[in-house]
């Protein structure tokens, strides 16, 4: 896989879209997959360029995953090029904060593969993807309010504990069954 370095992609981006706010985020791990952090407003424009530029042709968004950091939520896109067969270019967009302004533009218009994965990030992290054709919860049921994969998520205590007769689980089961089970 001929190595396409994020730096060369960054230079082409600055050359083509000078007003796009894109910067390189250093990745300390030995994998050396440094990411391109793009500002929310011009994420779609950058994505269009990455996909259609004859030099890059990153037309295969293989993986989209949300990550929960203390101050913001992040959507990470791993882009590949089928024609040129070069490597994962990591594109990151960050939300304003983890509460009201947790929204990021959806790139499903550019890469259809991001459809279900963005819905999953919305379902498990609460990242609202603006412009997503059908933003619903992917895995949890519709009435579920909280976002399970966030670090501050507290698992509800209403599930039926298997009263396995050993160790602390017995006490937890007793406590659980003692408290009234909320009628679903």
């Amino acid at each position, binding site marked *: 896989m001929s190595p396409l370095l994020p730096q060369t992609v960054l230079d082409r981006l600055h050359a083509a879209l000078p007003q796009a706010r894109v910067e390189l985020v250093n990745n300390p791990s030995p994998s050396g997959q440094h990411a391109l952090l793009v500002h929310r407003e011009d994420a779609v424009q950058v994505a269009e360029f990455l996909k259609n530029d004859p030099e890059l042709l990153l037309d295969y968004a293989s993986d989209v995953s949300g990550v929960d950091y203390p101050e913001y939520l992040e959507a990470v896109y791993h882009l590949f090029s089928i024609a040129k067969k070069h490597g994962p270019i990591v594109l990151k967009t960050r939300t304003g904060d983890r509460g009201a302004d947790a929204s990021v533009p959806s790139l499903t218009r550019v890469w259809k593969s991001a459809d279900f994965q963005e819905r999953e990030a919305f379902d498990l992290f609460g990242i609202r993807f603006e412009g997503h054709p059908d933003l619903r919860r992917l895995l949890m049921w519709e009435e579920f309010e909280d976002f399970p994969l966030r670090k501050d998520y507290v698992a509800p205590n209403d599930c039926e504990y*298997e*009263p*396995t*007769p*050993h*160790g602390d689980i017995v006490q937890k089961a007793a406590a659980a069954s003692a408290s009234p089970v909320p009628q679903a």
Partner: protein
Amino acid sequence: MNFPGSGIIKGMAVTALNIVGSYFDRAHAKRLITEQYPEERPKLAEASRSFPFLVFDGDDPEKGIRCVACKICEKECPPQCIYIVKDTDANGKPIMRPKVFDIDISVCMGCQICVESCPFESIRMDNIYEVSGYDRFAPLVLHKPQLLKSNAYYHGIRPTEAAATDARIEAARLRKEAAAKAAAAKVAAAKAAAAAKAAGEKAAETKPTQPE
């Protein structure tokens, strides 16, 4: 020859081959592979694992138990299905032996990470597979007496692995003895040297009285 309908006839030929073949497949290898379970038991491979068990040396489970209740396996077990309580001797001082060692086999997924992480070779994977009970919870928690099985049983189900484990334990014991002997020798040497020095000084005191 592919006249219309020939594909279907070729397909039918394959099924016919299997129907007739199943009556002549004595070795039960190709055309008739059913194992009539209760009567014909499956021959398990040596490495096949199901649930963990505790190994004890010699013939008395309580004395020969290898486990020292260090709780590494309890921490490492992904679904947290092992529960250990350290034993205390007569006057309450904790001793290196588990009083309670439960494994909840309804939670255990047989991933044998406990076997890998046990430094004392005391927990091993069994290959029993008929472990059903009439209640969802109580019978599926194996307590220490049910878990303890002799080293001979371990040799029975896994000859090569048991032999390798015994070899490792033997080597570790020999190394410990060698280390102990070396330490003892060093201590003895140190004592001898000290004694020699002491003897030397005593000699020195007694020697002035003797004419040089």
